């Protein structure tokens, strides 16, 4: 008898047992259910609006007229998903990227503020964490305030920053980025303090026995140990930075940007425009997180992490 005859007959996996199917079926099902709920809600919420419209014009209507009306109302309470996607595609591809009606233009404005704020905030956060890790005084005196400020609704400061920086003659990109940076440096600081202090005492002792200088301990032990913490907090920070940029566009009465688009939509009752802007924000957020994730994988590979 050879070993091959002993082996169990190979069981062919049926199609629903493939890992990819097993993994994505629940997600797709839930998404489809959500879309269905959305359509039903759109019909129910827009129904009275559409009926009022028909009755005001005193035109006779049937049930199917009503249904069609709810799916294509111009200013619906809740636009149907296809309307949102239509508006999104139309305002992304329908205009030149520099036109003020183009979502690409508004997204670019918000994105540039987000990225600048994110970079500033991340650098500030890492620098502060370095100071706190290396100085007992700062750890004792500054860190409690940093933690306290986490509990404060910092976003409420946004209008002041805009007003103050505007009074100092700063306009455009920088005030928004400063709000973004101000919002997103906290998670980076907290995460990096945790990361820099994550090496075991035993490893620090080993560095001592090699008589490593503080700088060498930092570059050879603390930094590599802090990298996972860095990326975890960067992922949080990048979304907060986007929120900061969007909210910062509100009090300026902003001329451009996703926040300005939201505000204008709410002033003029353009619901579809609001939803399209929200979709753009979602796309931006997931794109930014994906980018950070990609960089994390690249860095991990560079550092020799085996998947």
């Amino acid at each position, binding site marked *: 008898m050879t070993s091959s005859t002993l082996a169990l007959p190979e069981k062919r996996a049926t199609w629903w047992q493939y890992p990819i199917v097993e993994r994505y079926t*629940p997600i797709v099902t*839930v998404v489809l259910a959500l879309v269905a709920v959305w359509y039903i809600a759109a019909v129910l919420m827009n129904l009275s609006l559409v009926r009022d419209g028909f009755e005001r014009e005193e035109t006779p209507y049937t049930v199917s007229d009503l249904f069609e009306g709810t799916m294509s109302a111009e200013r619906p309470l809740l636009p149907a998903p296809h309307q949102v996607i239509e508006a999104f595609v139309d305002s992304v591809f329908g205009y030149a990227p520099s036109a003020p009606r183009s979502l690409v233009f508004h997204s670019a404005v918000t994105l540039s503020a987000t990225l600048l704020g994110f970079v500033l905030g991340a650098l500030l956060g890492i620098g502060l964490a370095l100071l706190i890790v290396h100085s007992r005084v700062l750890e004792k005196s500054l860190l409690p305030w940093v933690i306290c400020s986490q509990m404060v609704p910092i976003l409420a400061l946004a209008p002041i920053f805009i007003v103050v920086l505007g009074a100092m003659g700063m306009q455009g990109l920088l005030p928004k980025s400063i709000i973004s940076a101000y919002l997103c440096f906290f998670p980076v600081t907290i995460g990096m303090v945790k990361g820099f202090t994550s090496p075991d005492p035993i490893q620090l002792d080993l560095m001592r026995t090699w008589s490593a200088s503080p700088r060498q301990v930092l570059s050879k032990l603390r930094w590599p140990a802090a990298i996972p913490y860095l990326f975890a907090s960067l992922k949080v920070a990048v979304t907060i930075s986007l929120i900061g940029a969007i909210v910062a566009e509100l*009090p300026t009465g902003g001329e451009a940007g*996703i926040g300005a688009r939201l505000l204008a939509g709410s002033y003029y009752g353009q619901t579809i425009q609001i939803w399209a802007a929200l979709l753009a924000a979602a796309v931006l957020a*997931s794109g930014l997180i994906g980018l950070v994730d990609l960089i994390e994988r690249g860095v991990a590979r560079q550092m020799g992490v085996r998947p």
Partner: protein
Amino acid sequence: MNARKRRLGFILAVMGLLAALVLPLSSEDVAGLTTRPILSVLIVAAALLFAMAAWTQGILMVFPGFTGAFCGAVATLTLLRDPGVAGSAAAGFWAVTLAVWLGAALCVVELASIRPRNALSRRALDLAIPVLFGAVVFYLWEVLVRGFGVSPVIMPAPSAAAARFVASLPTLGGDFVQTFLRGVLIGYAIGCGAGLLVAIVAQRFAFLGRGLLPLGNFFSALPLVGVAPIMVMWFGFDWPSKAAVVALVTFFPMLVNALAGLSASGHMERDLMRSYGADYSQALNKLYLPAALPFIFNALKINATLALIGAIVAEFFGTPTQGIGFRISTEAGRMALDMVWAEIALAAIAGMAFYGLVALAERVTTFWHPSYRT
């Protein structure tokens, strides 16, 4: 920091204080320090205390050091009430300020290097250091703003914001009720409760859980506060729209964390429940929910901040004529920044108290968790 550097620092501070006695206080023509007897006594006392601190150490240094800094601070704050000094302060004034800052900073450094043996004084020290540090920062903010005469449009002095806070307590109270008690608390309860319920259902039916978890992660990373204008459109200007935004913003973090918490119990414990013949509701009450408590409280703490932010941002899109966010945006538009800072102080106090209450509840209910055992 070694003793010699510290002594040098204090000697510099003493020299600064003594120099202030002869240097001009203001670019305008005002009486010098030597013609103001009480202030001169304060300055000389501060100099003596600093000199005492220079040759002592430990707690013996901190007391004279801080008393000296306090004397100097009182002197500068009294000087600022002179309209000739405020806004046009000169070398003498800034010498005192610098000396106060230097002395206080050295004391904080010394305080941080004390390592007391017993737990009580260690805790007192952990509280005292940030408080003193904050006091120094607020003192510098106050003195710099008033000494340089910074326009209140750009940055009001903390005392101005505090005065405004006290003067407009009824307004602030109304805003607090509108934003916090109505918008935040109701929305928070709805959002967290719904998140927990959906998580329990999703844990019961694994298929739903596998579908909801990635979506929940995705949604909790989205800038959800952006739905604020839609909610205002649906639920009107008053607090229900704010509560709706808060509920939506707090739902997903709770869902994700509770889902992680409900599956945190180990196989051994589940098997134990099986061998006891526990039915699902018993297992949920005795095992799954208690094991999930640390995760649930984590979400509650995250949500405490998110909720306040959500409510304030939602108010930027329209409110009845009260609320923290409404007041901040209108007063910022009118350049009444002291009122804006008073509102921010209110939001900060409310936020910290809220967070503190949640943390307290966590301590009471999850006392068994390893992170609290000592």
